[in-house]
C-alpha cells in the first residue's frame, strides 16, 4: 500500500517551479498563474487563474465553444435534431462519443447519437451557407417528422463569412412550425468549451425557456435536475434518489431531456444543479425571471450523496425529510456493502485528476469514501468560482493546475507517482505506457453510471479494476535494456 504523503506546499511549489523552468519565459510566466500548491483557505497567493486563453503549441486538453454547446448542452436533448452547421469534421468527431444516454429510437424520436450536418463545401464558404441551411431544415422536417425542434450549432466559418442564421431560423421556424434555435457557438469564440455552455444556455433562455405551459398537473414537489448529461446513465441514477425522496423531476437538463421539459422548467419549485459550470447561467436566469430557487448538489459517493439529500430536503416539508431519511437509511446498507468490498483494496491510493466541468472537485468525496486521496486536480475550463469551491476540499500542498498542458500532467505524474490518474481519452494511453492506472473521467471509460447509489458501486468497482489490474505488473521485461538476461 502506498503511503507517500501529499507533498508539503513548499515541495509542491518546488515541483511546479521545476516544471515551469522548461517553458519559454513568456509561457512560464503565464502558466505560473495557473498552477498552485493548494491552500485550503484559498489565500490570495494560492489563487489559481482560470478561464484565460491557452498558450499556442502547448497541447492544451481543452476543446472549443462548439464542443461546449453542441457536445455538452444541446446534443443530449433527444427529441431535437442538432445540426452541426459548417464543415463535416466537428460533427463527425463528436458523433456518439460522449455517451449521453437517451431513450428513443435513433432517427425516429431520438437524434442524440447521430451526426446531422450541413457539410459545407467551398461554394458554401464563398457564397454563404444560409440557402443551404434553409434547405437542410426543410429536408430534416421531411425525413424526421417526429423532431420537436432543431438547433443550429455554428462551426467556425459561420461567424467568419457573415451568415445570418438567426434570420434563417426565424423564417424556417415559422414556415415549418417548429422551434429552430440558432446558436452562435463558433469554435474560435472564447477560450474553451465554457463559453459554449454560456452561449447555449443563453440560446435556451432566448428561445425555449418558458415557452411550454406544462403537460402535467403541478405539485409542490416539482423540481428540475440541471446539469446532468446522463453519461452512462448518470441522470437516471440521480433521479431515482430524488424520486425516492418524494420529489418529482419535471425536467432533465439535458441528459435524456426533451425540449418540452426545458420549455416547462419555469414551473419547477426548485432547481437542482449538478454541473454548476455548464448550467449555472440558466439557474440564475430562472431565479431572476421566475424566482425559482436553486441549489447545488453532489451525488458522487455516500458522503456527498447523503449531505446533498439532506440539503435538498431542507427546501421541503417534513414528509420529504422523513422520506429522505428513510432512503438514506436504506442506502447506508448498500454503501456499507460497497465500502466493505472495495475500500480495503483502495485504501491509501493516491489520485490525480485533470478533467472538465464539476468532476475535478465533485468526485473528491467519492474517492475519500473509498479511502483514496486526491493529490492533484485541475480543470479544463473552470472559472474562478470553481476554484473557490475547490480549495477547501483538499489538503494543503495538493497541486492545482488550470488548463494543464500535456507536458504538465505528465511531469506532475512523474513527480507524484499517483496510483490512479483520471483524465480524458487524449491522456489515457500516455499513462498506460507509463504504467499508471488510468480512468477516463469524462466518459467514465465507457462504464457508468457514477452518480447516485447505483453509480457509486460502479465507480468503486471501476477504480478497483484500474488500480488492482494485474496488467501493471507486466510492464517490465525480465531482461536488461540491452537484452541481457540474468
Amino acid at each position, binding site marked *: 500500500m502506498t503511503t507517500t504523503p501529499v507533498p508539503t506546499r513548499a515541495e509542491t511549489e518546488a515541483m511546479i517551479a521545476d516544471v515551469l523552468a522548461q517553458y519559454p519565459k513568456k509561457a512560464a510566466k503565464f502558466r505560473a498563474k495557473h498552477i498552485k500548491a493548494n491552500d485550503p483557505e484559498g489565500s490570495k497567493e494560492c489563487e489559481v487563474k482560470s478561464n484565460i486563453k491557452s498558450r499556442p503549441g502547448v497541447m492544451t486538453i481543452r476543446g472549443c465553444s462548439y464542443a461546449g454547446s453542441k457536445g455538452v448542452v444541446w446534443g443530449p436533448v433527444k427529441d431535437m435534431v442538432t445540426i452541426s452547421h459548417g464543415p463535416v*469534421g466537428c460533427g463527425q468527431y463528436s458523433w456518439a462519443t460522449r455517451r449521453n444516454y437517451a431513450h428513443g429510437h435513433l432517427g425516429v424520436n431520438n437524434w442524440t447519437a447521430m451526426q446531422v450536418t450541413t457539410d459545407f463545401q467551398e461554394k458554401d464558404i464563398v457564397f454563404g451557407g444560409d440557402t443551404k441551411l434553409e434547405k437542410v431544415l426543410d429536408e430534416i422536417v421531411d425525413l424526421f417528422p417526429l423532431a420537436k425542434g432543431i438547433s443550429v450549432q455554428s462551426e467556425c466559418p459561420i461567424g467568419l463569412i457573415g451568415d445570418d442564421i438567426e434570420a434563417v431560423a426565424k423564417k424556417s421556424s415559422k414556415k415549418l412550425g417548429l422551434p429552430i434555435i440558432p446558436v452562435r457557438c463558433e469554435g474560435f469564440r472564447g477560450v474553451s468549451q465554457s463559453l459554449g455552455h454560456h452561449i447555449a444556455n443563453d440560446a435556451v433562455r432566448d428561445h425555449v425557456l418558458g415557452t411550454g405551459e406544462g403537460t402535467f398537473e403541478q405539485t409542490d414537489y416539482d423540481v428540475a435536475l440541471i446539469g446532468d448529461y446522463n453519461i452512462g446513465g448518470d441522470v437516471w441514477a440521480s433521479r431515482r434518489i430524488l424520486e425516492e425522496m418524494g420529489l418529482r423531476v419535471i425536467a432533465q437538463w439535458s441528459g435524456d431531456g426533451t425540449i418540452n421539459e426545458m420549455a416547462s422548467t419555469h414551473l419547477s419549485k426548485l432547481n437542482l444543479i449538478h454541473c454548476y459550470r455548464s448550467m449555472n447561467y440558466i439557474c440564475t436566469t430562472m431565479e431572476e425571471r421566475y424566482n425559482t430557487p436553486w441549489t447545488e448538489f453532489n451525488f458522487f459517493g455516500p458522503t456527498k450523496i447523503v449531505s446533498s439529500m439532506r440539503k435538498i430536503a431542507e427546501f421541503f416539508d417534513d414528509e420529504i425529510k422523513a422520506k429522505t431519511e428513510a432512503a438514506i437509511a436504506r442506502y447506508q446498507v448498500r454503501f456499507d456493502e460497497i465500502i466493505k468490498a472495495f475500500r480495503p483494496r483502495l485504501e491509501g491510493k493516491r489520485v490525480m485528476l485533470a478533467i472538465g466541468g464539476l468532476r475535478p472537485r465533485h468526485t473528491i468525496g467519492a474517492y475519500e469514501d473509498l479511502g483514496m486521496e486526491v493529490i492533484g486536480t485541475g480543470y479544463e475550463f473552470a472559472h474562478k468560482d470553481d476554484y473557490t469551491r475547490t480549495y477547501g476540499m483538499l489538503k494543503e500542498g495538493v497541486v492545482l493546475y488550470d488548463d494543464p498542458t500535456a507536458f504538465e500532467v505528465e511531469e506532475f505524474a512523474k513527480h507524484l507517482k499517483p496510483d490512479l490518474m483520471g483524465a480524458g481519452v487524449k491522456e489515457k494511453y500516455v499513462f498506460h505506457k507509463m504504467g499508471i492506472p488510468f480512468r477516463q473521467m469524462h466518459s467514465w471509460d465507457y462504464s457508468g453510471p457514477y452518480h447516485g447509489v447505483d453509480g457509486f458501486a460502479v465507480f468503486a468497482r471501476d477504480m478497483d479494476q484500474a488500480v488492482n489490474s494485474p496488467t501493471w505488473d507486466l510492464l517490465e521485461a525480465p531482461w536488461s535494456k540491452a537484452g541481457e538476461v540474468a
Partner: protein
Amino acid sequence: MTTPEHTSAIPLQVLDHNDVFRDEVYQEQFENKREFENGASKEEVERVLQWTQTWEYREKNFARESLTVNPAKACQPLGAVLAGLGFEGTLPLVHGSQGCVSYFRSHFARHFKEPVPAASTSMTEDAAVFGGINNLVEAMDNMSALYKPKHIAVSTTCMAEVIGEDLFSYIGAAREQEAISQDFPVSYAHTPSFVGSHINGYDVMLKGILDSLSKSADADASKIEKSDKVRLNIIPGFDTYVGNHREYRRMLELMGVHPIILGDHSASLDSPADGEYDLYPGGTTLVDGAQAKFNRASFILQESTLRRTAELINDVWKQELVTLETPIGVTGTDAFVTAVARTADVKVPAELTLERGRLVDAITDSSAYVHGKRVAIAGDPDLVVALTRFVLELGMVPVHIVSTNADSTFKARMEKALSASKFGDAATVWPEKDLWHLRSLVFTEPVDLLIGSMQLKWIGRETNTPLFRVGFPIFDRHHLHRFPIVGYTGGLHLLTGLVNTILDELDRNAPAHSYDAVR
C-alpha cells in the same frame, strides 16, 4: 459437494449501465418521465419507424440535396495529423481553433488506443480579426521547448482558411523570431475542412512533408548507404492498419528489396507499454524522406487519396511512379508483388508463393460459407475498391457500395472492378452518399453482411445484419488495426474475420438441429 468453498478475487458483483437500468424501479421511472416529455405516442413512433424502412422513405431519403446524416468521412486536417505522425520526431501543428486538435487527438486515440500528440495554435476571436501569426510563432516556441520535435508538420483548420492565413510567411516569421532555428525542418499544407475529406488532408500534408524534406540538406544522393538492394518507396496513404506498414516492409524484405515506407505511423501509433512514455517512438526517418526521390520508384497504393503526392513524384521528382490498388486479397497482392518484382528486377521468393498458396487454400476451405453472400461495403474510396475486389474473389456478392468521400473517378474504378467478375452485377455504387442513405438501402434491399467501420453498427443492429469491421474509425473493437489486411497475410486475416463472422451468425440463428459441430 462438488465444489469447495472459496472467496472470489472480485469482491462484489456490480451492475453497470448494461444491466442496472433493466430493474423495475428504473423501468417505471422511464415510463413516468414520458408525461414530461410530451413525445409522440408509442404507436406513432412505431409507425414512423416502420415508414423509415420503406422504399417510399428510401426515395425521399435519396431525394435530399443538402442535408447530410451520418456521413462516413471526416475533415482534411485530421488526415494531415496522421501524415505528420508517419515521420520521425514529428509533431503535427494545426493552425486554427484549438478545439479541432482536441477532436483529432481524441478521434485517433479512440481508434488506435494510443496517445496522439498534436498541437494547436489556439486561435480565438482576436486572431480571427488580426490573423494568427503570433499564435503560430508562439506555438513553435512552446512546442520546441516542451516537446522537442525534430520536425513540425503544419496544417490548417477551416477558420484559418476562411481568413486566408499564409503559412509559408508565418513559418518564415517563426524562424526570424527564433521560435525555431533557420534550418529546423517545418513542412506545411493548407487543409481546409470544407474541401474534400481526411484523405485529401493526408495527401497534401504528405506531399508537403516530402516536398520539404526532399529539399533539405539530407537530400543528397551521395549520402545513401551503399547496398545491392534496390530501394523502393511504398506510400500506403491514409491507412489506419499499422500491421499493413509492417507487412509491406516484410514482403519487400523477403523479396530482397529495401523498402522505404513514406508515412510510416506503425511505430507512433503502436508503441509499447514499458513504463516510459516516448512521444516520438518512430516513423519514416527524415533522412529517408529526404532521399526518397533518389530511390528507383514510388508505389502509390491509394490512388484516390494520393493524387497530389503522385503529382509531386511525377512532376517534380520525375521519379518512376507505380500506382496500384491497395494490395488486398489474392489478385490485389499479386499485382503488387509482380510490380515490385518487375520494378526492382527481382524474383518472387518461394516463401511468398507459399503464402499465396496458403491463402488460396484457406479461401477454398471457406468458399461454401462466403459464396453468394450479399454484402454492403462502405468506407474510404480506395479501401472500398480494394475490399470489393477481394469479396468478388471470394464469390461474395456486393450489393450496396457507399463511399461518402469518393469523387467522380470512383464510379468508373468500381465499375471496372465489378464488371471483371460474374459476382459484380448485383452491385450499385453510391459515391457521395452517407450512412443514412445506406440504412435505407439495407432496409429495402437486405444483405447478409455489412463491411465497414464502426459507424455502420447502428445499421447492423436495426437491420439485424452482422457487421464485419474494416476501415476507420473502429472505436468499439480492439486491436484489429494491429494486424495487416494487405498482402497474403492480410488476406488471411480478412478471410478469417469474414467467414467466422458468418459462422457465428449461422450458429446464433441455427435451429437446434442445425447447430452443427462441423462447418
